[in-house]
């Protein structure tokens, strides 16, 4: 029951609300069980001379000399009584709502914070769709559990208990007769709703498949049309749509049967109670007012029983949801036990014998990598996909942690430096940068909220994206992301560069971040940047050799190892691998030159 601990944590500070709500809930159900007794009081006590089933205090309050005044008192009292009861119903409802929403608020916030703080290794493997499910559906399931289901169960339990108590106080034999079918009703509902769960699931799956077919059809409509497969698509969809329909109808039949049978059962109970009641009244073993009260109280027992069975049968869902939320919370945050050290970082970077492999394999993605980059130098790291370029960058900001060797900034092992501090000092421009669903302006300003408009347009201009932006319909106010315009890969990359310009960083990393920009613009941007970042240590990760050529130092990676290191000129002369790479990529230029 570890998960409960986590959840009580979130409820803390609001739990008193829940307790007050509970106390009110019980009081209210007691009051509700009294309402049928007013009619009993009228019939038996006002008209007859028999004892009232209402509590003594109330009887004293509504006692009067004449029948008419007494009736008036009963009527007035019942209105007042109900008014008080209903006001409390409202208060109780608001208390539970406040409690539920406040804890849901805390859970959402906690989940969000935790997800953001989970290590990169978690995110690189995570299934986004599944995580979203957990943050929305599972939180909702939890919310409904505390806010609705638990309350409903307690409310119904309290109501049936008090109703049975009132019956018991009036007539024990009749109470026993009235409860004969109760266990059957409860258990049939309980078992039914557990059994039907798998059916619900199969309906959901069928719907999922159907929806997926539509989605694929819409997304791939060019392919569908170009191959003329419309009829095939219609048939495929119809199969899924019909399957969904059929599964629904299977469920429907069961559902109709369940409701019909339990309804019959409930009316059977009414028949039983009514017949015996009449018999007892005629026999003089019960008053007719009591009989009427019994019929009303019976309704407070049998109908809720069925609902109770349903809600309890549904509880399983909640534990699953709680487990799923908990699974996320259990993954330790990457900032847990992180160092508080925030040394000044100037940009001198040293890799000494760095090796890295993921926990689940022994294959080293990086092997014994060593190099030294003095402050202000530009290093190009070149290599094929899978050569370890990106791993190297991930190690540099502790997205991943190297198992062997050390990485030092100005002589301090980065393992001892606070992660956030480290990342604030190393500006990485990713190949596929993420833009937030804000305006273009805000996406740039995100790195420096104090920046003024001039600085922002200036940054955009340096990154060669200003022209693109002003051509958007709403210019800098254009929304990006899911609900806004779709930017090309190159535009995104250039925006990412622009936002990086707003903040001074001693170390910068271009992680293949101009790959989607044409060569001409690439050069243009790099020229502009060299002036901007004179004292900055710059890492350029690329597979374009022309981009790497101008660096002070070129590191060639292959299968996790450094196969060559040096300037362009030395490498061309001493390294065959580099030279062949160069020749391959500049081959065309050579042919063109020849032809010229």
């Amino acid at each position, binding site marked *: 029951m570890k998960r409960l601990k986590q959840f009580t944590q979130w409820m803390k500070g609001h739990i008193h609300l829940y307790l007050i709500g509970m106390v009110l809930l019980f009081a209210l159900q007691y009051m509700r069980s009294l309402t049928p007794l007013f009619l009993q009081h009228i019939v038996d006590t006002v008209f007859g001379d028999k004892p009232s089933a209402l509590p003594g205090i109330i009887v004293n309050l509504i006692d009067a000399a004449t029948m008419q005044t007494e009736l008036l008192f009963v*009527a007035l009292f019942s209105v007042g009584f109900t008014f008080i009861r209903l006001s409390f119903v409202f208060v109780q409802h608001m208390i539970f709502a*406040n409690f539920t*929403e406040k804890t849901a608020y805390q859970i959402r916030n906690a989940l969000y914070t935790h997800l953001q703080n989970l290590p990169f290794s978690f995110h690189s493997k995570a299934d986004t769709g599944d995580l979203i499910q957990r943050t*929305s559906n599972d939180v909702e399931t939890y919310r409904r559990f505390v806010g609705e289901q638990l309350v409903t169960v307690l409310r119904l339990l309290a109501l049936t208990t008090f109703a049975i108590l009132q019956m018991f106080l009036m007539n024990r034999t009749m109470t026993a007769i009235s409860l004969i079918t109760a266990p059957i009703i409860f258990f049939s509902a309980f078992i039914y709703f557990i059994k039907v769960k798998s059916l619900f699931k199969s309906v959901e799956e069928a719907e999922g498949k159907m929806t997926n077919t539509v989605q694929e059809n819409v997304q791939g409509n*060019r392919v569908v049309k170009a191959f003329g497969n419309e009829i095939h698509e219609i048939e495929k969809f119809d199969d899924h*749509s019909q399957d969904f329909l059929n599964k629904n109808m299977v469920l429907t039949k069961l559902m*109709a049967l369940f409701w019909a049978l339990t309804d019959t059962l409930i009316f059977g109970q009414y028949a039983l109670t009514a017949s015996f009641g009449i018999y007892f009244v005629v026999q003089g073993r019960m008053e007719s007012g009591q009989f*009427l009260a019994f019929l009303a109280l019976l309704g407070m027992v049998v109908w809720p029983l069925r609902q109770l069975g349903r809600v309890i049968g549904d509880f399983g869902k909640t534990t699953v949801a709680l487990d799923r939320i908990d699974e996320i919370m259990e993954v330790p945050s990457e900032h847990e036990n992180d160092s508080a050290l925030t040394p000044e970082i100037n940009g001198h970077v040293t890799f000494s014998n760095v090796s890295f492999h993921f926990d689940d394999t022994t294959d080293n993605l990086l092997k014994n990598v060593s190099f030294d980059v003095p402050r202000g130098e530009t290093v190009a790291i070149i290599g094929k996909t899978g050569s370890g370029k990106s791993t190297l960058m991930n190690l540099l900001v502790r997205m991943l942690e190297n198992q062997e060797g050390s990485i030092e900034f100005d002589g301090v092992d980065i393992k001892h430096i606070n992660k956030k501090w480290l990342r604030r000092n190393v500006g990485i421009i990713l190949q596929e940068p993420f833009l937030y669903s804000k305006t273009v302006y805000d996406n740039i300003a995100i790195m420096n909220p104090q920046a003024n408009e001039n600085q922002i347009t200036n940054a955009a201009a340096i990154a060669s994206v200003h022209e693109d932006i002003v051509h958007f319909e709403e210019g800098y106010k254009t929304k990006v992301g899911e609900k806004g315009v779709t930017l090309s890969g190159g535009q995104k990359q250039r925006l990412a560069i622009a936002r990086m310009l707003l903040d001074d960083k001693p170390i910068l990393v271009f992680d293949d971040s101009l790959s989607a920009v044409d060569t001409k613009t690439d050069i243009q941007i790099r020229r502009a940047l060299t002036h901007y970042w004179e004292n900055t240590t710059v890492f350029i990760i690329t597979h374009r050799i022309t981009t790497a050529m101008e660096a002070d130092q070129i590191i060639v990676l292959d299968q996790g190892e450094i196969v060559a290191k040096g300037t362009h000129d030395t490498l061309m002369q001493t390294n065959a691998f580099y030279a062949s790479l160069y020749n391959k990529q500049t081959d065309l230029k050579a042919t063109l030159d020849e032809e010229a």
Partner: protein
Amino acid sequence: MQAFEEETYHNQEFKSHTWKRIFTLMAPLKKNVILVIILAAFTAVADVSYPLINRYGIDTIIETGDLSLLPIFIGVYVLYMIVLGGLIFSFIYLAEKIRNNLAYIIRKHAFEKLQNLPFSYYDRTPAGWIMARMTSDSRQLSELLSWGLIDLTWGGLMMIGLLSVMFVLNVQLALITATALPILAFLSLYFRKKILKAFRKIRKQNSKITGAFNEGISGAKTTKTLVLEDSNYKDFEHLTYDMKRHSIKAALFSGLYLPSILFIAAIATALIYYYGGMNVADEVITVGLLYVFVSYVMQFFEPVMQLANVLAHFQQAQASAERVVSLIDAVPDIEDTDEVKATYGTIAHPKKENWEPLKGDIEFNHVTFNYKKGEKVLDDFNLLVKSGESVALVGSTGAGKSTIVNLICRFYEPTKGTITIDGRDYKNRSLAWLHANLGYVLQSPHLFSGTIRDNIRYGNLEASDDAIIKAAKMVGAHTFITSFKDGYDTEVNEGGARLSVGEKQLISFARALLADPKILILDEATSSVDTQTEQTIQKAIETVMEGRTTFIIAHRLSTIMSADRILVLEHGKIIESGTHEALIENRGHYYNLYTNQFA
């Protein structure tokens, strides 16, 4: 799916046209609808008569003390039980049958329409919009037209039944109860609308939160590198705070609703207690009748609340209905003429026996084209491509490359001028005929869920397994396919998530090859694949192009070089045309483009 649900309602007018159209969709379910309405009426009668059975017990048996009547009472009760059980079963079954079948019918119509709508429709309609029509709208609409309709009938009849019986039994007490009716109706409608509105707000807020989570997860790497955790959290916290606020506000309305209704009921009950009690005392009415009235007051509220619920949802359903109708009745802006349909058949019923073989000569004659509301993309464009020739289209974004391809596929038609295939205007033959002869390889290859085999077979649904393997071998996909554990039966999952882009591309080449089209369109990807894959793809392209009229939107030099003719486009005009060698010699745009890119 939740995010797709729009929540805008433009006006509240009753749209008779829309509903008429929806009712025509319901026609096949007519019998069921009539039956369920009759059942609803019977159920209302049963509900009204129930307290009367008890009254019989109270007034006749108890008053007279004649226990010999008890078996009759029990018999009536048992009969009632059975009838009610049967009613409830058929009621639920039929209502659900209507609901599910109606949703099915709507989906069927919509999907068939979608297959007939031209590409331009997809171009301007977001996928999410279409998805919402197929899911939430068809669901909401069928819900209202099954249960809503039944609630309306049952509720209406129940109220009429209750009122009539009450007035027959006792006018004074009936009047008291009836006075509560308008107050109840008003309160119910007021609260239902408020609640619905509040919940709509919550749903909206909820999809915002889901969106934020999505962003937090997809953008995790960027967030970490930029250390934006705190600023993101601040934004997020605003959303959850608003969610909390909206939810508590919604709880306020839903919390007030039932108590206020019950309070009205309590007043009515108290009045019955008093006046009814007085009548009993004066021996004007019996105790049994008093019981009946007390029961009726409580029974009265159910139908009122149900009716209010249906009315409150009506507006929402009408919005759904309008959107569904707008899809089902969408008029395709590219369609075969009736004469063409008569000869060549429709998409659903093609007359393949009349289809001439296609050779593959394509000619653009003075073609002018602009997208809706757009500027001219092509202006007086002329081009002749001979059967079997391959043409590479080169130029910057917006030069008109995609437009030319869209026109050839007849995804769009020329605004002015004609396009002929084998010398005849292609509008004179059917879309299905053209598409049957067309092969298309997309920039980002689209795979359907299913196996690799299914995906290759998509090019020709009648192809044998051998033909599939042969096609895969020809494009060089066989090796990687057989390296999977399940080989050709490997599932590609949603959108082909487990395959690399290069592999997906090879599969789509095999698919195109299997289709054996006369005209082939290659929309080449810019994405960088490693050299090995690039070589395989290049070979595949050359294999696929052989003997077909091919149009390539090309980015890779190797692909461009293999074309018979290269067209350099700018602003919808051909500014250069010729073979690679000729163009290089020319020292024009083409030369500049490529010396730039590789320098």
